């Protein structure tokens, strides 16, 4: 059977670092990029006798995620020890949740796929980091004890493409919730994929393989596609898919077996004796505020008149949503500014969304000048571009660049009269029916006014003077 006769079944497990200031069980800082082993203490080093003390903010963020995805929030969940040996795990076990996680059920809305069900979301601590070198490995324990939620998705995904869409939607949702920074490169959002294949039309699940070390959306697709093909080939050639953990090698684009971890799959979970059960009262859960998710913001934008494509561009970056909100005024016009002038400036590195130089509310001042006829639409664009670059008040930009249009009737009339006085023959022809000469007159006047005449007003004036 060719690959097309097999149906892939994919479930993703995502580890997301929570944006707390301190670690989950101790007061060490969680900030990224500090010199190795400078953010550690007896608790996260696993020194004998040190006891964990739970960070309330980490629990609250897990509740927030649970509420956002419609999970059941457990009033009582328990901590478990997951035992395995690895140099980056100083205690020899990871404090996690096993039998009774804080959140279960729920679903993640994914554009184009409806919703993808969740099995559970649980809290746990991160391990340290190994830096591999030829001679040996360095261990940095700054990350040891950073709070994580593990979000376990149901095996409802049917292609590498769907897996990637789900991941993108989940990542953006967590960013909107303010509980994760979505940074795949720095490892604050990590993904493992469980992949199996079965002949199309059958129900029984195939043997699943767990893929690790996938740290970009492109690699997610590559790793899953490679693995699907590998499993199909294995079955085709009369072999069997072995249940195992495979590592994605992003340089070669292949997955390979992680023999060292095979035996370690015996984690010998047992309840963590150092931590009492985690109790979340319904009152506490009810008090946790849940910000709007991306699909809700998208609906709001399109309902307010913003074009679908523009709304999607804005929603893809919460910073754009914030600028759009602060620009205010007509939502459609504000959206055009965000996906137009602002996006262009960002592309050309004239603006940095992380550190805007201008106050978005000032955009409305430019519109006001444009609507009053003081600025032509071209001039308004120029003022907006400069506003984004420098943050100077629009009125000052108009003055400095000399962009104000001449709309004053007296000043325009003098110019119109002068143009007509020296274009007698053209005026005759116009009156005789050659109406397209109007453009010639306006052009002459514009020349005189150095391009700053209000074209609408000039049109009207010429027509009136020529007897139309």
């Amino acid at each position, binding site marked *: 059977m060719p690959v097309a006769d097999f149906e892939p079944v994919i479930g993703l497990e995502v580890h997301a670092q929570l944006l707390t200031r301190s670690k989950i069980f101790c007061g060490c*800082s969680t900030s990224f990029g500090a010199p190795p*082993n400078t953010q*550690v203490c007896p608790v996260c080093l696993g020194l004998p006798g040190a006891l964990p003390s739970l960070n309330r903010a980490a*629990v609250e963020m897990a509740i927030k995620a649970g509420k956002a995805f419609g999970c059941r929030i457990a009033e009582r969940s328990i901590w478990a020890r997951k035992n395995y040996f690895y140099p980056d795990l100083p205690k020899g076990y990871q404090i996690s949740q096993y039998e009774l996680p804080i959140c279960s059920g729920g679903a993640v809305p994914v554009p184009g796929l409806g919703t993808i069900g969740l099995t559970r979301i649980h809290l746990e601590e991160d391990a340290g980091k190994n830096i591999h070198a030829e001679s040996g490995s360095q261990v940095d*324990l700054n990350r040891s004890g950073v709070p994580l939620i593990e979000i376990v998705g149901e095996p409802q995904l049917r292609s590498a493409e769907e897996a990637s869409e789900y991941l993108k939607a989940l990542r953006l949702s967590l960013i909107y919730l303010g509980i994760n920074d979505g940074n795949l490169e720095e490892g604050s959002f990590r993904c493992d994929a469980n992949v199996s294949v079965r002949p199309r039309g059958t129900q029984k699940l195939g043997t699943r393989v767990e893929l690790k070390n996938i740290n970009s959306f492109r690699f997610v697709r590559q790793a899953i596609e490679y693995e699907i093909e590998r499993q199909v080939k294995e079955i085709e050639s009369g072999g069997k898919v072995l249940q195992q953990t495979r590592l994605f090698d992003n340089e070669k684009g292949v997955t390979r077996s992680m023999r060292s971890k095979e035996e370690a799959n015996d984690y010998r979970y047992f*309840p963590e004796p150092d931590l009492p059960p985690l109790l979340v009262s319904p009152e506490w859960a009810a008090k946790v505020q849940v910000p709007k998710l991306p699909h809700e913001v998208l609906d709001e934008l399109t309902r307010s008149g913003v074009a679908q494509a523009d709304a999607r561009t804005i929603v893809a970056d919460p910073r754009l949503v914030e600028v759009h909100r602060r620009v205010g005024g007509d939502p459609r016009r504000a959206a055009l500014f965000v996906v137009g002038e602002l996006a262009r400036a960002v592309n050309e590195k004239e603006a940095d969304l992380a550190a805007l130089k201008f106050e978005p509310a000032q955009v409305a001042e430019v519109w006001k000048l444009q609507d009053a006829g003081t600025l032509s639409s071209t001039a308004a664009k120029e003022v907006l571009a400069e506003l984004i670059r420098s943050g100077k008040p629009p009125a000052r930009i108009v003055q400095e660049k000399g962009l104000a249009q001449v709309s004053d009737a007296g000043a325009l009339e003098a110019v119109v009269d002068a143009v007509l006085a020296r274009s007698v023959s053209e005026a005759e022809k116009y009156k005789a029916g050659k109406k397209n000469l109007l453009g010639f007159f306006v052009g002459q006047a514009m020349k005189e006014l150095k391009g700053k005449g209000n074209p609408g007003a000039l049109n009207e004036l010429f027509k009136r003077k020529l007897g139309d």
Partner: protein
Amino acid sequence: MAIDRAQVRHVARLSRLALSPEEEERFAAQLGHVLEYIERLKAIDVSGVEPLSFAGEASSPMREDLSRPCLPREKVLAQAPEQDGQAFLVPRIIE
């Protein structure tokens, strides 16, 4: 319940313990006794009893999310068998 030496070896490996053949023999017998005791406990009818995961169902006291000073790195690394002034050094991890 009897436990054989292969099982002892497996558990020892998971715990990174190097046991001599005599120790394997001795622990197989001792662990067998522990398991026998567990078998006796299993005979007790506990249907309807919630599994106890923690002695005394105290609610978890929680800490506010404030970061505190950490240990100085010299102190952190001082007791490591091998270190390079920045990190712990371990044999090369091959994946």
